[in-house]
């Protein structure tokens, strides 16, 4: 069998139904085999989008996303998407073509050392030198990407290797000496953690993205309900708990709610689950000098003690650890503590600044009340992201995806496309600013080609709002942030054969939303907003 055919066969063995890609000279043998296979190929308009779509697909389906691009610029264009999925622990397998093995290192046409370029943000990577190793390597790649703490795995395949003849046999077992993720939490540590919570007066649970990766939402909820423990979440943890839970407080972090951050600082037992306590989540580590007992549950032992030293570390899969903890939990008297936290609630200060256009908070409230209970919202990066994170109500089976760790602008559209392909029956909403839209609106081409329906919600302030705000907060004059030559965005949609409406008031938004939701095609609602609005 030709190695290229073997590669596709491996993907089929792994249950891959769709690959996002962008072909070129160094992957043509793979594309020839892909053409003859039943696997759906989604041609994106840029390699970075192929990576982001694979990431959106992975987050929607819980499966590993796959993207294939060519060597050189194809591979380097993919770099941001790989780094993005590394930071957000999203399982993707990226296959890059490479120049002929004999020419590697000679700086030939479209050659780039992609393994070296991505070494610091791939979970693992392979340069295939022997075609016979393809089945083993691909099987390992999917295993590594999807188990333990998920992440991107890169496979670089020289074009001559793709055309070699191999004896194909898909391995049944995996044995990687240096990779044995710890799944089961240590019994004694779990017991210690439960005891510490039982003895606490002011317990607080903080849910991170790891809870979603581990599909541990139900178990987390059981622990919260049974113990009556108030709960906050990180940006990546949005979607792990329903807003209507009586114990739900909100978002922590530099763009979080004041009362949630204050709750973190005042808890006597803090239970961190699947969160690396990144700098945006917990900016001021001195908050923790008050001597709270910190329980840290994570599948990645390196996260424990990296940013915050914990007293009771539990390494393992959140799903089974939380399940065990919930079983032994008893109801705690936390009413006074929850009342105390709620008394710290502060009104947002935007209302005073809002003078023209629509109000983002109101728009997202209206949206939350209208869209399906299983809708998926992808948020880009910037003010739009934080508005969405605060105001899109998580209920039912709703999901929220955003680029949390890397903060990659242009993520919302391609990840929405990936999510829609993964979950065709769900309503998908992509939220963005006028800046982030222009980073990836070429993907409208992909959208139409695949006949997908996505609702676009754009906040247009004719500038890079978040950067403007950072400059203002630092008492600098605003500079380099104005997008004064924006095109007519509705016309762009029309040029692609789609529709849209520009709205300048909350009432207009309501009407536009009704129209968008009944439209049979993708639809954009462009919301004109006050450029002086702040994020919180």
């Amino acid at each position, binding site marked *: 069998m030709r190695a290229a055919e073997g590669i596709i066969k491996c993907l089929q063995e792994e249950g891959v139904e769709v690959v996002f890609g962008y072909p070129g000279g160094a992957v043509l043998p793979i594309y020839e085999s892909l053409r003859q296979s039943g696997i759906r190929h989604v041609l994106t308009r840029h390699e970075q989008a192929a990576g982001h779509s694979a990431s959106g697909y992975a987050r929607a389906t819980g499966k590993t996303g796959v993207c294939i691009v060519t060597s050189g610029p194809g591979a380097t264009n993919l770099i941001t998407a790989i780094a993005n999925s590394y930071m957000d622990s999203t399982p993707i397998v990226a296959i890059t073509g490479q120049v002929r093995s004999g020419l590697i290192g000679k700086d030939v046409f479209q050659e780039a050392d992609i393994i*070296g370029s991505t*070494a*610091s943000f791939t*979970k*693992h990577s392979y340069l295939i030198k022997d075609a016979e190793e393809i089945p083993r390597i691909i099987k390992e790649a999917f295993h*590594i990407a999807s188990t333990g703490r998920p992440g991107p795995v890169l496979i670089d395949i020289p074009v001559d290797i793709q055309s070699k003849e191999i004896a194909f046999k898909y391995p049944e077992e995996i044995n*990687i*000496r*240096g*990779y044995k993720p710890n799944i089961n939490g240590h019994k004694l540590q779990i017991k210690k953690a439960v005891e510490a919570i039982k003895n606490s007066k002011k317990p607080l649970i903080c849910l991170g993205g790891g809870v979603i990766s581990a599909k541990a939402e139900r178990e987390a909820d059981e622990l919260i309900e049974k113990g009556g423990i108030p709960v906050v979440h990180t940006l990546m943890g949005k979607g792990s708990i329903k807003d209507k839970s009586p114990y739900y407080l909100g978002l922590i972090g530099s763009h979080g709610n004041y009362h949630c951050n204050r709750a973190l600082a005042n808890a006597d037992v803090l239970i961190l689950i699947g969160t690396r306590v990144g700098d945006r989540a917990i900016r001021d580590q001195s908050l923790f000098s008050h001597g709270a007992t910190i329980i840290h549950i994570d599948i*990645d*032992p*390196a996260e424990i*003690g*990296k940013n915050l*030293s914990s007293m009771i570390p539990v390494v393992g899969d959140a799903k089974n650890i939380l399940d065990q903890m919930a079983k032994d939990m008893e109801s705690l008297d936390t009413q006074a503590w929850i009342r105390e936290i709620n008394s710290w609630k502060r009104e947002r200060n935007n209302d005073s600044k809002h003078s023209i256009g629509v109000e983002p908070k109101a728009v997202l409230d209206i949206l939350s009340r209208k869209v399906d209970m299983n809708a998926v919202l992808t948020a880009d990066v910037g003010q739009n992201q934080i508005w969405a994170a605060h105001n899109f109500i998580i209920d039912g089976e709703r999901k929220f995806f955003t680029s949390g760790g890397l903060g990659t602008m242009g993520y919302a559209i391609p990840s929405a496309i990936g999510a829609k392909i993964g979950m065709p029956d769900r309503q998908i909403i992509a939220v963005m600013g006028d800046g982030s839209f222009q980073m990836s609106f070429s993907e409208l081409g992909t959208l139409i080609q695949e006949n997908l329906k996505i609702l676009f919600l754009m906040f247009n302030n004719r500038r890079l709002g978040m950067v403007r705000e950072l400059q203002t907060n630092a008492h600098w004059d605003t500079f380099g942030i104005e997008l004064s030559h924006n095109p007519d965005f509705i016309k762009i949609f029309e040029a692609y054969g789609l529709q849209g409406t520009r709205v300048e008031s909350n009432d207009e938004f309501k009407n536009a939303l009704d129209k968008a939701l009944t439209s049979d095609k993708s639809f954009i609602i462009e919301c004109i907003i006050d450029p002086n609005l702040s994020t919180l």
Partner: protein
Amino acid sequence: MSKISGLFARRGYNIDSLTVGETEDPHISRMTIVVKDDESIVEQINKQLNKLIDVIKIIELSEQRSVFRELALIKISLNQSNRSVITETVNIFRGNIIDVDNKSIIVEVTGSNDKITAFIELVKPYGIKEMVRTGLTALERGNSK
């Protein structure tokens, strides 16, 4: 190798020395890395290295239970007056003279880091023309494994 040195560089850990070579199993190579840092940083280094799929095992070697060796090649300026005293010093340190011409001598010294440093200090006044040190390599004693 590049993955490991890269990890140190990008996470800002300081490496004192790093040596690598074959082991009893030809499929496995062994690196000896010397770092000087707080316990918490060393723990992080340990964990981050463990995350690399190619890393099979990490052993922290304690000074008491391990043997350490380093090798240095030192080219020293030679003249009629210092020749015998250099030879004597080499003998005291159980080094070997491995090359000599009428202007210089190359000496090989093996041992602990301190011993080599002491030797270097002693011969420095005669003029060290060139020097290369391997960095530390080490094994745990007896059957502590």
